């Protein structure tokens, strides 16, 4: 694994000292600032992603987690700063980068089948005007099988459950055959079977040497699922391997006062009053 820097906000940083390993890092962010109007959402973010690992972006609502992904993918124009992938700008390497947007970002009543959606992951490869050929359809079908939906390819997407829809999105990203994936809350509101299927896919991707960066909302499962973490609240509060950066102190600094609520929940859980997960109905 690459040398990890643990930067804290406000730590001194000289402008000329760009990380020398940025060419091997799948994602290097330098001094990225994004603002909606005059309100900054991300402030001076610096980060180098270790290759071949599963990375969680964790932070409270409005911390800029999705914004970080969208800015990295060029979907937002940053106020300043630079994002590079393997030392090159996004436009040169977009074929190697996959994206899973939030599930709610599309109309699931759209008249396409699950397989049609997965095939969209290959449009970039297919290029202008040409149809989706048999080879591409087969590749897409294989990706559907990888998320356990091999037999639902012909089903219209509105007739899939929420978890299945999320898996279709994951399969679509797989169909892009990327080396770096951005996923925006892939675990949000999915059932247990889908959560397991997604975790399996993430681990398989890691074992193939690919890097996955997920916006993740569930602090409880970060340790179990991810290797590295970015604690984000407008700025990067801490980043690095989960074992080092994902500490109570850093979480406290990321969530501010709101973590006390999590603490209370954690203690209640330790006493066995609340089921760990999926116990919302109780």
């Amino acid at each position, binding site marked *: 694994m690459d040398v990890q820097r643990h930067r804290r906000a406000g730590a001194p940083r000289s402008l000329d000292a760009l990380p020398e390993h940025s060419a091997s890092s799948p994602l290097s962010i330098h001094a990225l600032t994004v603002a909606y109007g005059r309100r900054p959402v991300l402030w001076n973010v610096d980060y180098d992603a270790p290759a071949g690992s599963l990375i969680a972006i964790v932070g409270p609502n409005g911390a800029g987690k999705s914004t970080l992904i969208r800015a990295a993918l060029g979907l937002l124009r940053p106020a300043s700063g630079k994002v590079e992938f393997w030392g090159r700008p996004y436009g040169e390497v977009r074929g190697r980068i996959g*994206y899973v947007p939030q599930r709610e970002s599309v109309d699931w009543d*759209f008249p396409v089948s699950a397989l049609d959606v997965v095939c969209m992951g290959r449009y970039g490869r297919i290029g202008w005007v040409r149809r989706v050929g048999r080879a591409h359809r087969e590749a897409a079908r294989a990706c559907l099988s990888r998320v356990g939906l091999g037999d639902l390819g012909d089903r219209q997407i509105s007739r899939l459950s929420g978890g299945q829809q999320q898996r279709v999105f994951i399969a679509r990203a797989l169909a892009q055959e990327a080396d770096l994936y951005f996923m925006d809350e892939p675990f949000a509101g999915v059932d247990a079977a889908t959560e397991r299927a997604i975790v399996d896919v993430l681990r398989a991707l890691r074992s193939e040497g690919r890097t996955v960066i997920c916006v993740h909302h569930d602090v409880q499962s970060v340790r179990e699922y991810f290797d590295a973490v970015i604690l984000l609240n407008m700025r990067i509060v801490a980043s690095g391997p989960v074992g080092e950066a994902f500490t109570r102190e850093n979480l406290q600094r990321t969530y501010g006062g709101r973590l006390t609520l999590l603490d209370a929940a954690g203690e209640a859980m330790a006493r066995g009053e609340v089921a760990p997960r999926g116990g919302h*109905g109780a």
Partner: protein
Amino acid sequence: MTGALANFDLGALARALTLRAGHNTQVVMAGAAMLGLAAGVVGAFAMLRGRALLADVVSHSTLPGVGAAFMVGVAMGGEGRSFVPLLVGACATGLLGALAVQGITRVSRVRDDAAMALVLSVFFGAGTVLLSVIQGLGTGREGGLKTFIYGQTATMLEGDARRLGAIALLACAVVVVLFKEFRLLCFDRALARAQGWPVAMLDGALIGLVVVVLAAGLPAVGVLLVVALLVIPAGAARFWSDRLSVIVPLAGGAGMAGAYAGAGVSSLAPGLPAGAMIVLCLGGVFVLSALGAPARGLGAVWWRGTRARRRIALDHVLRAGSEGAGGSAGPVAAAAIGGACGWSGARTMLVLAWARLRGLARTRAGAVDLTARGRSEAARVMRNHLLWEAYLVRYAEMAPSHVHFAADLIEHVLGAEVVRELERSLEAEEPAGAPAEGAGEADAARHGAGGTA
């Protein structure tokens, strides 16, 4: 034209629809059909891209362009009311209207619906003023200009129909060539941008097609109604299919048929406004689709709902009958079943009558007794229920105390295929993990199902 017909003449209508009503009518109907085809095909994408309202703005915004083009044409000593200059003028201000909506929402805090209402009314107002100025000029050539508001097909010439055919060809060609790109654009713009597609250009191409089709439809259908050509066929086609590759040609066909029929009907009497007749015919297609389409139509939806409710009611009867009085599968009072399910007396009678008709139960002196078939059916239902319970406990990690209520509803939607899958996945651990509650009932159900399988 067959002359003024005050009364409706079916023979004339049949002649018109079968292209035997004279050359002029044929030209008009063919032109309208081409227009309907173009509008249907483009409209399917416009609707899925959420552009229906914007299309309405565009159509109203074309009016000042029509007026301006007319004035320029007359000033240059031309005829004024000729197809191509008017089309160009209409496209220009139509596009301007669309851009104005975008500009207003981008730079100000006015929301898009308000921006659309604003642009639509201002442009239409400008157009109306321009037209009345033209009327006041008294050039003598402005006669047909007012028909742009309500539409009139009678003035369509053979050249116009040919040009409409060319536009239809263009629209179909663009849609066929960019089908994949438009599908991605309409479904997920973020992915399209991340993959590097020129989203603004594709959006522009789609809006461009919308503008051209609307402008071309103005003379025939009029500013007020032309948007219906785009929206109605697409809406109707959506009822028939879940596949974009089917919906697009269907919408084109529906638009073609509606416009053709509408033009035919309106040709029967000069007093009938062509635009309105076309829109009414399209509306008829829509209503038929909404009611009669096999999978998504209201009729089918109603029928499925009724069948599901009936099945749920039957399942209740079967459970009540097999649980019987104190576990022995004896007769149960009909009133007790109805009471437990919250049914009215009449509904209970109806449900029981249905159960009798299906050969599942017998009623004697107010008591319900399951037939052999009813008992095996009941075993199946209860086995489904049991599988669900186990499924929920094991997979959804729900508190077991909550399972019963949820399962009671969900068992009704369990299909045979799911049941088989559950059986396979659960059979390995089955003996150990039977829920404590109602264990006897569980055993009975399992044996029962084993007997009927």
